[in-house]
C-alpha cells in the first residue's frame, strides 16, 4: 500500500491510502455484518435441530419442521442445468465475437449481448411462465415418451403434466447467465497474446487448432472465473425462478418435475411467514450464502490446479 516511499509520503498520500483501504475493507465489513446478523436471526429455527435443518427434506411451517435439503437440491439442479447450457453457448459466442465475426459486425453483436444483461429478471420470469411454459410442456412430454425405453434417461426425463419444473428454471437461468459469461469470456480471450495465435498459425494450425492450442489453455482460469460468476447469479436468482419452478417441496430425480430453490422459497413464503418460519427462511439465506462462498472457494482451487497443468507452473 506504500504509494511512493518516505520522501514523497505527503499527507494527501496517506489520506488517500486510508480512504481506499477503508473502501476495500467496507466490503469485508458489510459481508461480515450480513453474515452475523442473519445468523443471529436464523438461530432459533436452526437451533431446534441443526442437523435436520440441513439434511431434512420435510418443510412444514405449520408443524414447525424445517428441513431445507429439497431446496438445496433444487438450487443445485437448476444451476447445473443452467450452466450446462450457458457455458458452451457463451464460450461459443465469445469465440465468435473475438475470432470469427467481422470487425464491423462485432460491435453490434456485443451491444445486443449486453442488452440481454440489462433485461430485469422479473421479465425473464414472466416470459418464462407465460410464453415458454405452455409452449414447452408438449416438448417435454414428447421427449419423455422418446426416452421411455432407455433406463436411466427415462428416470431423469420422466413424464410430466407441467412445464413449471427444474428444467424450465434451468433454461431461464441459462439465458440470464449467458451475457455475463460471454462478456467476461470475451475479455479473457482478448488477453491471449497475438504472438501465441500467430505462432500457432505459423505452425500450420487451422483456426480450430489455433483456438484449441493457443486460446483455450491460456484462458482456462478466466473461463472458470466467468462461469463461477454466472453460477453465482444462477444460484441466487429469485424471482425468475420462483415464477417457473412450480414451488413444490420434494426431491425428484425427474428434471421435468416441479420443485423449488432456496432463493425462490424465501421470496414466496416471506410475506405470510410467522415467527419461527421467518427465522427458518433467514436460515436458508445463511445457508445459500455459505454454499456460494464454498463453491467460489472450490472454483479457485480448480483454477489453480488446472493452470499449473495446462500452462506449466510459471504463472
Amino acid at each position, binding site marked *: 500500500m506504500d504509494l511512493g516511499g518516505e520522501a514523497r509520503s505527503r499527507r494527501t498520500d496517506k489520506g488517500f491510502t486510508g480512504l481506499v483501504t477503508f473502501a476495500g475493507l467496507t466490503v469485508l465489513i458489510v459481508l461480515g455484518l450480513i453474515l452475523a446478523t442473519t445468523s443471529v436471526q436464523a438461530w432459533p429455527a436452526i437451533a431446534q435441530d441443526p442437523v435436520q435443518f440441513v439434511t431434512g427434506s420435510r418443510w412444514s411451517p405449520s408443524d414447525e419442521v424445517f428441513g431445507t435439503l429439497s431446496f438445496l437440491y433444487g438450487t443445485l439442479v437448476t444451476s447445473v442445468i443452467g450452466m450446462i447450457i450457458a457455458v458452451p453457448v457463451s464460450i461459443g459466442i465469445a469465440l465468435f465475437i473475438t475470432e470469427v465475426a467481422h470487425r464491423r459486425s462485432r460491435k453490434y453483436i456485443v451491444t445486443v449481448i449486453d442488452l440481454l444483461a440489462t433485461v430485469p429478471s422479473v421479465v425473464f420470469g414472466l416470459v418464462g411462465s407465460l410464453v415458454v411454459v405452455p409452449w414447452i410442456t408438449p416438448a417435454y412430454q414428447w421427449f419423455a415418451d422418446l426416452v421411455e425405453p432407455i433406463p436411466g434417461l427415462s428416470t431423469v426425463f420422466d413424464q410430466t403434466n407441467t412445464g413449471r419444473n427444474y428444467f424450465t428454471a434451468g433454461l431461464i437461468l441459462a439465458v440470464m447467465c449467458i451475457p455475463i459469461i460471454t462478456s467476461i469470456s470475451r475479455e479473457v480471450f482478448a488477453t491471449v497474446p497475438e504472438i501465441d495465435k500467430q505462432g500457432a498459425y505459423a505452425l500450420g494450425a487451422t483456426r480450430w487448432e489455433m483456438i484449441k492450442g493457443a486460446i483455450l489453455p491460456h484462458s482456462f482460469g478466466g473461463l472458470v472465473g466467468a462461469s463461477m460468476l454466472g453460477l453465482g447469479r444462477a444460484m441466487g436468482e429469485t424471482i425468475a425462478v420462483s415464477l417457473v419452478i412450480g414451488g413444490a417441496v420434494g426431491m425428484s430425480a425427474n428434471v421435468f418435475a416441479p420443485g*423449488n430453490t432456496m432463493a425462490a422459497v424465501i421470496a414466496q413464503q416471506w410475506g405470510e411467514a410467522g415467527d419461527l418460519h421467518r427465522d427458518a427462511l433467514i436460515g436458508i439465506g445463511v445457508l445459500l450464502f455459505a454454499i456460494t462462498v464454498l463453491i467460489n472457494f472450490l472454483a479457485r482451487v480448480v483454477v489453480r490446479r488446472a493452470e499449473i497443468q495446462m500452462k506449466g507452473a510459471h504463472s
Partner: protein
Amino acid sequence: MKLNRRTIFGTLTAGALAMSMAACGGSSDDEGGADGEMVSGEITGSGASFPDAYYAAAIEAYAEVNPDLVVTYSADGSSAGKEAFGQNLNDFAGTDSLVGDGDGPEPGSFQYIPTVAAPITISYNLPGVEGLQIDQETLANIFQGTITNWNDPAIAATNADATLPDLPITIARRSDGSGTTKNFSTFLDEATDAWTLGASDEIEWPASSVGGEKNTGVATIITQTEGAIGYVDLADASELGLVTASIENADGQFVQPTLDAATAALAGAEVADDLSYNPLDAAGAEAYPITAPTYILIRTEYDDENVAAGVKEFVNYLLTDGQDIAAENNYAALPDELRQQAIDALNETIA
C-alpha cells in the same frame, strides 16, 4: 388496462355518490367525520393482500370524498401486517386470519372490524365440461391427491350429465404462504372427514401438485394446463374467465361462487363478541361454502388523536359508502346486521 378502467369507474361512481350524499345533506349513516369536519393528515395500513383490490379502489374513491386525509395501504401479507401492527408501525392492519399468540398484537390492544368477504372459487380446465358439481368429500380427495383422474366414479356420481375425460388431475395451488390457502384448507379441514393435510397458510401438498405465485399465478397454471383444478379468488377467476365448479354447501346444495352466495354465507355465519366470524361452510341453501372473511385491525388506543380520527373516518367510509364499491371489485358486501355491528364497534373503540 382492465384494472385501470375499474378504478376510474370506481372513482367516478364514488364521486357521484359523494355529490349525492352532499345533496342529501348529512345522511345519518355518515357518522365518521367529527361533526361534519373532515380530518386531514396521513394514515397508513398494511397487511392482507386478499382484500387489496377492494381497499385500493376504496382508497381511490375516498380521496374524492376527503382529499385531505391521505390513506395508504400496502399488501404485504396478513402476518407482516399483524407484526407491523404489534410494533406500532402502521395505523391499521388488514388480516384474513385472527390474531394468535406471537403474531405481534397484544390481546386487548386491537379490535376486529370485518370489511368485506369473498368467495374462493374452485376453478378448473376441462374442455367441454361446464357446470361441474363437486361434493365436499370429493373436493378434499381431489386436493390431497387421493383422486387422481377426472373419470373417477366419485366425480361422476355428482355429474351424471357430463362426459368426464380420462385425464390426470393436476392440482394448482399457491406456492406462497397465503390467507386464501388458510381459508380453503380450514374449510376442508372443518367440513370433511377425508382431509388429512391440516389447515394452515402453507400445506404439505402432494408432490405432483404445481404451485403458482399469488392468485394470478394459480389462475395462469389453470388456463395453461388441461386437467388442472385450483382454488382462486373470484376477482382473478372472473378476470381470466376461468370455469368454476359448483360446490356442495352445508345444506347439501351445489352452489356457484357468486357475490350473492357469499353474502348469504355471511348472513348464515355466527358472529362472536369480538366480531370475528366464520363464514366457511355456513348454513343456508344459497350460501357458498368457501367464503373467506377479511378484517381490519384498529387500535384500542392511538397515541395521536388525529390519526385515530383519520382511521375512524376511513374505516367508517369502508363500512358505509365504501361497501358499494365492493361488488364492482368482486368482493361481497357485509350483510346489514353485521355491518351495523361493525360500525358500532368502531364508534365504541375510537370515541
